């Protein structure tokens, strides 16, 4: 599809303040924020921090008190609100599909408002249903006939319909159960890799922020920007106690969600081949980082861990005493890898490359060392290729 039809644009908050009539302090206080073209900027913070207000000033569903917001260098105040909004995708937590309109009609809302031809709208609806992986036959159903997750996908498709360059997403997955939320988040990241919109994404969930954001703006009560940084920077180097608190005591663990197994130095396992003299293997084990020998086939694919009794034989047997599982992939997300290792109640897990060949061994100890090293660098992954686990 022609998802990047209108190129992504930047969004800039310039000293933006919002004071609601009758309230004491500002809801958003002198906010300066530059969102790069094609980036997901997550606005996160506790309730009452002004994150939704900040986002809604972009499409003028909330009017700015002072300061300005520029989209692609043009002030939003120079457009009439309804025109402006038709060029900005809008997804809300309650989804807000029109119950009396079919899925196709819902998706066609903005194209209809801006006066597209019937044929073009029909083609676009088909394209979007495919993009959000819904079968074409849902086009004629009503929203009440879809599950919550499907409805939210339709909400996203509807926001994308007229190919806006900017998307506003207000807790879009907040009302979805955890399992489906995870799936929708992953789908959306995959989608974003394709469509590359500039997205302002509001959430109160720091884990979601870390997962979805290219950059995260943490707001504190009263609408102050506490820190604006990449997820990795935020976890490595919180600006102050508030951010550190908000990111959570488990920020070391959260960093694991940003990494792949290939990002850390793996241990080398003593390898053994079928028919090899066990003496050789035993010699390798002396002083090895991993105190067990891994049996591999001729293509260096793991077969199993050799036990002491296996090694008491003359030559290495065809089968190993214990299974090699879990076998991890270099591309696995560290958090999931750790979880697999812990779940299998094993200390070591062979790591293989894309061809299934042994690349090293991951141990709980390696991860522990990594987390405790103060200068452990977290690799940056652009949203497009960030682990989707």
């Amino acid at each position, binding site marked *: 599809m022609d998802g990047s039809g209108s190129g992504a644009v930047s969004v800039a908050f310039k000293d933006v303040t919002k004071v609601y009539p009758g309230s004491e302090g500002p809801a958003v206080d002198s906010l300066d924020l530059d969102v790069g073209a094609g980036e997901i900027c997550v606005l996160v913070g506790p309730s009452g921090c002004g994150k939704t207000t900040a986002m809604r000033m972009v499409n003028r*569903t909330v009017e700015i008190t002072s300061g300005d917001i520029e989209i692609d260098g043009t002030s939003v105040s120079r457009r009439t*609100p309804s025109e402006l909004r038709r060029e900005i995708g809008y997804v809300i937590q*309650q989804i*807000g599909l029109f*119950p009396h309109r079919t899925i196709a009609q819902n998706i066609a809302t*903005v194209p209809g*408002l801006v006066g597209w031809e019937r044929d073009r709208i029909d083609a676009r609806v088909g394209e979007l249903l495919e993009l959000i992986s819904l079968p074409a036959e849902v086009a004629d159903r009503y929203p*009440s006939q879809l599950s919550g997750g499907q409805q939210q996908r339709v909400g996203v498709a509807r926001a994308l319909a007229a190919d806006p360059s900017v998307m506003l997403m207000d807790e879009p997955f907040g009302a979805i159960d955890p399992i489906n939320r995870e799936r929708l988040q992953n789908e959306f990241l995959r989608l974003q890799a394709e469509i590359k919109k500039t997205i302002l994404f509001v959430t109160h969930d720091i884990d979601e922020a870390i997962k979805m954001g290219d950059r995260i703006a943490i707001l504190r009560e009263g609408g102050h920007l506490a820190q604006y940084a990449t997820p990795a920077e935020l976890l490595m180097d919180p600006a102050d106690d508030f951010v550190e608190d908000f990111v959570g005591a488990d920020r070391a663990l959260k960093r694991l969600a940003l990494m792949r197994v290939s990002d850390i130095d793996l241990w080398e396992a003593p390898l053994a081949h079928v028919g090899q003299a066990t003496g050789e293997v035993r010699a390798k084990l002396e002083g090895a980082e991993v105190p067990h020998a891994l049996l591999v086939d001729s293509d260096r694919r793991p077969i199993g861990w050799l036990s002491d009794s296996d090694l008491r034989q003359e030559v290495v047997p065809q089968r190993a005493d214990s299974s090699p599982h879990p076998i991890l992939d270099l591309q696995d997300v560290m958090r999931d890898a750790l979880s697999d290792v812990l779940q299998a109640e094993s200390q070591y897990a062979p790591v293989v490359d894309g061809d299934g060949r042994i690349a090293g061994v991951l141990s709980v100890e390696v991860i522990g060392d990594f987390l405790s090293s103060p200068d452990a660098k977290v690799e940056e992954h652009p949203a497009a290729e960030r682990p989707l686990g």
Partner: protein
Amino acid sequence: MIPVLAQIEVREAGEGATTCQGKNDTFCFDYAIDNLGDYLGPTGEHLLLVVLSVVAGLLIALGLAVISHRRRWLVPVFVGSTGIIYTIPSIALFLLLLPITDRGIATAVIALALYNLQIVYRNSAVGLNNVPASAREAGRGMGMTDRQLLWKVEMPLAMPEIIAGVRIATVSTVAIATLAIFAGAGGLGEVIYTDGIQRDVFKTPIVMGSTICILMAIVLDAVLLVVQRVVSPWRRVRTI
């Protein structure tokens, strides 16, 4: 119905003449059949009165509902004032309007339409108010103007409730319209009052007039039920 049925006398088998002609205190089936053509005119008038006054009432009530939709403080004002009109005894209202609008169908339609306001307005206001806030927010956030939001989202969603109000209003108007005779507007009131009551309480036209009223109410209600279902297909789908 039982006492009425008990009073029905029919011509005896094989006998050409009617036996109940001229008896006031029984329902004479033969008389009714023989004079069936006499009811067509009043029935047509009655139907016209009902349709005109329901349509007029609906338009005014919708107008009021749209006005008060974005000015919620007007809702109690409109509910109150249409409620006061509704409590005026109908005969009194017909007679009160006579000096202003004179005898005729206009007087009857005005009075009947005024009675419809309360029910239809209340249902319309509630229907518009019941539109999910999320649908409204999404519509506005996608760049619908207030007017587009009203006609593309709010009005269609409120339609089942509006028509539910119209159904109640229609049935009650069919009954009240029999009093249009006092405004000189004809209708089935003529059959019941002029033919029946004024002729020394002649039961046959009274029963016939009432029966036609009941049938008309049932048929109109059924028609509106179909309309209601046609304009709200999304309410009939199997939800998950």
